[in-house]
């Protein structure tokens, strides 16, 4: 067992966990943050993507204890109260989801992608960067549309939009 201390969505949290506990399980079971999903459990599908120290990672392929001392942002930390994050709003607007299972990971990947491409995104880049996120409903078309729209919105309102930590 180890003590795991994290800053999650702006709150300091800590708890004891077995060293083999995956970060995704610590988030879901110890902290009750069930927005982060386990899809494939083999680091391919991306439903478990969260940001650790500002970078998108697959939380099913990282031990909670590895992340100890780090800052973690999950899907629950994106919205500003009742105001959706621009990426969340764009997914809603452009019907970027059907069953919704992959959506938290898609959105966390999208916010990371947008922050790494302040110059803006094109469709080919979005599709290439979604390599590690699998959706079995949408055919990706509206997900790509939503990310492109959010990228434009966020570029237009730099500073106003709550950027991914």
């Amino acid at each position, binding site marked *: 067992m*180890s003590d795991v201390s994290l800053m999650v969505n702006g709150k300091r949290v800590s708890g004891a966990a*077995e*060293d*083999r506990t*995956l970060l995704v399980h610590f988030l879901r079971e110890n902290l009750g943050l069930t927005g982060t999903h386990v899809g494939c*459990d*083999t*680091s391919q599908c*991306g439903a478990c*993507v969260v940001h650790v120290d500002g*970078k*998108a*990672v*697959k939380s099913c*392929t*990282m*031990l909670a*204890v*590895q992340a100890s001392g780090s800052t973690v942002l999950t899907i629950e930390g994106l919205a500003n109260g009742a105001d959706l994050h621009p990426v969340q709003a764009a997914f809603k607007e452009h019907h970027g989801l059907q069953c919704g299972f992959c959506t938290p990971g898609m959105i966390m*990947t999208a916010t*990371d*992608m947008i922050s*790494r491409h302040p110059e803006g995104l094109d469709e080919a880049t979005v599709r290439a*960067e979604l*390599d*590690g*996120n699998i959706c079995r409903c949408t055919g990706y078309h509206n997900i790509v549309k939503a990310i492109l729209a959010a990228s434009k919105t966020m570029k237009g309102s730099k500073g106003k939009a709550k950027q991914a930590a």
Partner: protein
Amino acid sequence: MYAVNYHRAASVADAAKLIKTGDAKLLSGGMTLIPAMKTRLAAPSDLVDLSRITELQGVRVSGKTVTIGAATTHHAVANDEKLKKACPALSHLASLIGDPAVRHKGTIGGSIANNDPAADYPAALLALGATIITNKREIAADKFFKGLFETSLKDGEIVTAVTFTAPAKAAYEKFRNPASRYAIVGVFVAKGKDGVSVAVTGAGDDGVFRSKEIEAALAGNFTTSALDGVKVPAKNLMTDIHASADYRANLIAVMAKRAVAAANA
């Protein structure tokens, strides 16, 4: 995953001590080791985490000499501005590994110590004539990569960096498995002061190797037309559900041609 004890190393010296604990394994990005532990293909008693050791981080370019710390992530290698100028082929290679989230965690040291027969970095280091630096010694790339998941690393030996001289021209072309994104064939070509080297990943029965046929054809004539009609023997190439040895042999010549075209572009 079986129970494991986690240790975070503060320095390479600290890691060298901790790795003597039980049946310990070194953990860097964990992009291979953690999935292997989850499926119980690996079951170390202890993990020694190298990823927060600052002396293992970063890319340094001094003149033509490039040195990359072992715990530098693929993302960092792909985006390092100095490296993009000194050896853009290696930045490009790093940008093709896995997906963005995997590149944020996976490291060059972890990749070469694992020596997966379809990993990208081994082809680059072999073609670049790189030197692998450990906490004990320096090892030439052609002595380092020994076979499928085999290297010349001794128990407890820690890769700390890789270093090479930037080539005049280089490129990497990868034919990816459309599902796994691993190389079915990846070819790295480098033209430096010692001539042309061509290393192939994803195809060899015994892991990464240099293609003598392609090198012979390109020596003295580093053009795509020098490769017209060049045949790579299928002997010692892999046959699996993704591709036969003959198919891979043909792909090596095709990817080499594309790589030479990219290197000359």
